[in-house]
């Protein structure tokens, strides 16, 4: 309301100024002195059409809203001349939270393409003179001076919030309840929690519903009667040991404070009359920010002694019940293992059980159902884990017992609960394994195989062998290997001997060749003398051929003019001698088979034969 008055005043002022001078004015206005927590406005006024407003960068003061732009224009006709004025206002709603002096830098706006800067402001934030009388109380200043400023009754003890812990030194995991209570002497309304405590290091569970009606009680503290109400109740479970601090809770509420407006008329009667409680029953709605005390919880660690290996932080008192819905089933049928943990304590923190299933079981993550009762006394209820298992293979399987450990607060020791062992008989399902088996097919589709099957049996060629009888390494095998080997060796020895003997005869013949030839020639000489022509030629021929045969190791059957020539050339016999020898041989053969008188050449042939043999003999040496 006061803002509006200022605004209109300013507007009027500016408008009148506008008439006289058309220069652009851009000014900032605000209260010079404000109290901590007070909401105040900062207004920028522009007496021209502006655009592109750039607000100040205010530091240290919270900006609640803004800039809110409003325009007003007025047209005036005075003595027929019309003048028009326009006003732009940019309004900020600010709140200072700390004492001190703050500078609000200049804001800028663009008018007709030119930038216009506002003036800067300095705002002093002072300590709230009366914390309970904020806000509304200040508006009194704008009232006329005729009435004095409203003094509001109320002190910091009128209303306050306090946090209580049920146990300030719990064990780790032991639940405590923290209660925030509001104490008030004045009626309050609109309790609005602006900042909740952050329970770092705790697992928290709200024990009061948001819309629960506040239960009010009265309590007398230091002789004064207070109305007390629980505004928050939270169960906390410390997750770690050590000193944990719970931040204060902050809330805003509207307190209805009686205001005593002292009216001075100068007349004592009227003063008394108007100042009595009947007339002077003005009630001020005072907005107040309340802050609770921080709570320090020192959490004791759980004893290490006797701590089970599977302990996962459950503290309280619990019972466990587990069951399977069937123990005889077929492959691919589902079986449910239901495990219920019920009791009192941080039950919702139990998120998993260390259960292991046979590897042939397809198991899924458990379905966890919580049924938790949160009462002012704490948390109790049950946590149900449902494991769905599907055996894929037939057989007898056991689900080994599993354990759940917790620290029992009453017994002051760790307790381990053990489940029974479940034995499941899984039979082969009638649905055939085909339902289970998934054949990973190749992505490429070249040939589509409709089905796969084994190849057909061997129908015709079944050769039965007595078991264990193998050809390899059998006696027959070794005999077949050794006998040919022996035969070959025998052959080799015999062949060697034969070859040796044969080479001996060749050598002998070689050595004896000349001797034999001489003997034959002597015989021929005798035949020559006795005139036996045919015998003579036969003897000469035999002497010559036989000599060659013996000398060169050529069997008689293979002897011919060519083979002899070849043999002589091989022995490097002089070509002329070979020619002579050939001639002698030819002559002998010719003379032998020629018709008519044969005695004429006998003497010559005899001499030729004798000469050539001795010549070759010499050549070969």
């Amino acid at each position: 309301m006061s803002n509006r008055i200022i605004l209109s005043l300013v507007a009027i002022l500016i408008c009148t100024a506008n008439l006289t001078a058309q220069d652009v004015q851009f000014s900032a206005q605000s209260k010079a002195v404000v109290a901590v927590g007070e909401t105040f406005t900062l207004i920028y006024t522009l007496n021209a059409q502006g655009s592109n407003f750039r607000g100040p960068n205010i530091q240290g003061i919270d900006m609640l809203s803004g800039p809110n732009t409003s325009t007003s224009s007025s047209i005036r006709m005075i003595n027929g001349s019309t003048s028009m004025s326009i006003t732009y206002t940019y309004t900020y709603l600010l709140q200072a939270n700390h004492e001190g002096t703050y500078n609000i830098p200049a804001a800028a706006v663009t008018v007709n393409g030119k930038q216009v800067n506002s003036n800067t402001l300095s705002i002093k934030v002072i300590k709230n003179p009366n914390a309970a009388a904020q806000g509304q109380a200040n508006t009194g200043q704008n009232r006329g001076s005729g009435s004095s400023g409203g003094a509001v009754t109320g002190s910091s003890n009128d209303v306050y919030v306090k946090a209580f812990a049920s146990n300030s030194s719990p064990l780790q995991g032991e639940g405590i309840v923290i209660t925030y209570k509001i104490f008030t002497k004045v009626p309050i309304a609109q309790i609005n929690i602006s900042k909740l405590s952050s329970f770092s290091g705790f697992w928290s569970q709200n024990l009061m519903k948001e819309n629960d009606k506040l239960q009010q009680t009265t309590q007398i503290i230091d002789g004064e009667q207070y109305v007390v109400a629980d505004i928050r109740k939270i169960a906390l479970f410390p997750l770690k040991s050590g000193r944990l601090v719970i931040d204060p809770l902050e809330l805003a509420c509207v307190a209805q404070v009686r205001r005593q407006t002292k009216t001075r008329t100068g007349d004592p009667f009227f003063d008394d009359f108007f100042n009595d409680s009947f007339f002077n029953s003005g009630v001020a709605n005072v907005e107040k920010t309340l802050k609770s005390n921080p709570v320090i919880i020192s959490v004791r660690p759980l004893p290490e002694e006797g701590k089970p290996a599977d302990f996962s932080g459950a503290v309280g008192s619990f019972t466990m019940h587990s069951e399977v819905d069937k123990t005889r089933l077929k492959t691919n049928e589902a079986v449910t293992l239901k495990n219920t943990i019920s009791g009192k304590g941080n039950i919702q923190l139990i998120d998993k059980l260390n259960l292991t299933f046979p590897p042939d079981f397809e198991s899924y993550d458990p379905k966890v159902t919580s049924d938790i009762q949160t009462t002012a006394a704490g948390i109790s209820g049950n946590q149900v884990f449902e494991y769905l298992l599907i055996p894929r293979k037939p057989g007898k399987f056991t689900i080994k017992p599993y354990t759940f450990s917790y620290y029992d607060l009453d017994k002051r020791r760790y307790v381990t609960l053990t489940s029974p062992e479940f034995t499941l008989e899984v039979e082969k399902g009638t649905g055939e394994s085909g339902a289970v088996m998934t054949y990973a097919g190749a992505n490429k589709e070249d040939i589509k195989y409709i089905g796969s099957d084994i190849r057909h049996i061997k129908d015709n060629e079944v050769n039965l062998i007595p078991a264990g009888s193998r050809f390899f390494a059998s006696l027959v095998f070794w005999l077949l290997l050794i006998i040919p080997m022996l035969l070959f060796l025998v052959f080799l020895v015999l062949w060697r001997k034969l070859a040796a003997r044969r080479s001996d005869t060749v050598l002998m013949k070689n050595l004896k060749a000349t001797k034999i030839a001489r003997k034959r020639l002597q015989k021929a000489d005798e035949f020559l003398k006795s005139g036996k022509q045919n015998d003579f030629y036969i003897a000469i021929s035999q002497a010559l051929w036989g000599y060659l045969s013996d000398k060169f190791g050529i069997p008689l059957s293979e002897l011919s003019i060519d083979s002899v020539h070849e043999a002589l050339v091989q022995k490097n016999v002089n070509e002329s001698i070979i020619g002579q020898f050939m001639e002698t041989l030819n002559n002998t053969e010719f003379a032998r088979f020629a018709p008519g008188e044969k005695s004429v050449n006998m003497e010559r042939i005899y001499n030729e034969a004798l000469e050539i043999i001795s010549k070759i003999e010499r050549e070969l040496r």
Partner: protein
Amino acid sequence: MSRLKPYAILLIMLLATLTGYASGQRDNVFKANKAYSDGAYSTAVEFYKKVVDAGFESPELFYNLGNAYFKLNDYANAILWYERAKRIDPGNEDIDFNLNVANTKISDKIEPLPEMFYKRWFNGLVRLFSVDTWAAMCIVMFITGLLCGVLYLASHVLVLRKIGFWLGLGLLFFSVISLIFAWSGYSFTKTTSEAIVFAPTITVKSSPDEKSTDLFVVHEGTKVRLMDNISGWYEIRIANGSVGWLPATSLEKI
């Protein structure tokens, strides 16, 4: 290969006392084959088993028996008999094919350890033929090689001598190779014992003791290699190299 079968038949001939019996068993084989073709697989199994129990073996017989078991959805037995057939005739493609099909039906999928390339090649060559085929080849090549040697020594014709020498040398070399292959195949079947898991699901233990740590789970039909044997327990190794202990009752030796 099958043309070398006469040697096997020869062997049967040598064991004349058994021949008459074998022919009686051959009737059983024919009956079994007929039952199989008619779809009466359990009858076929019965007849085949009769022949096996009578003390006869043959890769074809084992293969047929494996087929009959396969058709009865008894994959562990099918694999067992295929493996037994494979032991006798490792190069048979049909056995390999059916064994692969049967292996797709069992639960365990084991990634075999890769072998060194030379080992793989050598084993591939060895498994090309059965041990007896290698042995027969060895004998034939050995004798022919020796004959070539004789030819080399005895002949006067240079070409024949050359042929005899080189051919003989080559044949003797290959007969030695065949002997090595036969021997390595033979020693494999003699020294390595393998088995098939027959328990539907069984946990392999870390030591031969029911209370020892569970290592891994194997299922019916998985082939394991037997490493050691202690009081009713076998130390087994599966194809991926994992080792553990299984009770002997859960296994059937190949």
